[in-house]
């Protein structure tokens, strides 16, 4: 791992965790990574995620965030597909 790499935790729920078969991914990101670049990386590695890319909203450390959010080591990034509570 390069010194500039940052490890983030990616949380999957609902249909995404079913499709990927995991609820937690540990991902190493290059310096300057954003939420959007993380989604691009994940969509390449997990084709199941690519199909949902357009409807995924990001949350970083349990707060909704836009795709240009910069990511730092230790961040917890959740991939939120359309919610259906209630």
């Amino acid at each position: 791992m390069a010194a500039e790499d940052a490890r983030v935790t990616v949380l999957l729920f609902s249909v995404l965790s079913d499709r990927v078969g995991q609820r937690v991914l540990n991902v190493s990101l290059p310096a300057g990574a954003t939420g959007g670049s993380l989604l691009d990386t994940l969509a390449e590695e997990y084709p199941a995620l690519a199909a949902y890319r357009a409807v995924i909203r990001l949350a970083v450390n349990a707060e909704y965030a836009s795709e240009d959010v910069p990511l730092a080591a230790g961040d917890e990034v959740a991939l939120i597909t359309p919610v259906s509570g209630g």
Partner: protein
Amino acid sequence: MAHAPFYIHLTTDPLDVGAAFAFLQSPAAGGIDLFVGTTRRWTGEEETARLVYDAYVPMAEREMRRLAEDAAARWPLEGVYLVHRLGEVPPAEASVIVGVASAHRAEAFAACRYLIDTLKKAVPIWKREVYADGREEWVEGATPVPEGDDRRA
């Protein structure tokens, strides 16, 4: 107020509507509105065996608290009770209780309706339908709208 004005919780246990009312009782309240979402067995010709709820728990609780704070800023409320069940919820059982106490009923109804509508749009909780014939599917939900965006709308 004798007790804290907000009760926010996620649980796999069955929900208790009597406890929700007891929490909201207050000598300052004249009207308490409780909305309870329950698992419906039939949708058209589809028979639901149960719903199964998943959530991003810490964020869901944080968003629910934010909704309660937002409602209390919009209406004069004496208490807010927001509890969502996770895991399996069989037909006729409660998946969510939204309760609001206010001095007058108009505000209690308005805030309660706002809270359940916004909860369904903004809180990271998902339901899976398990049908009687064994099929399962995650319910296509609302694209999450952060409650902060709602506030600016």
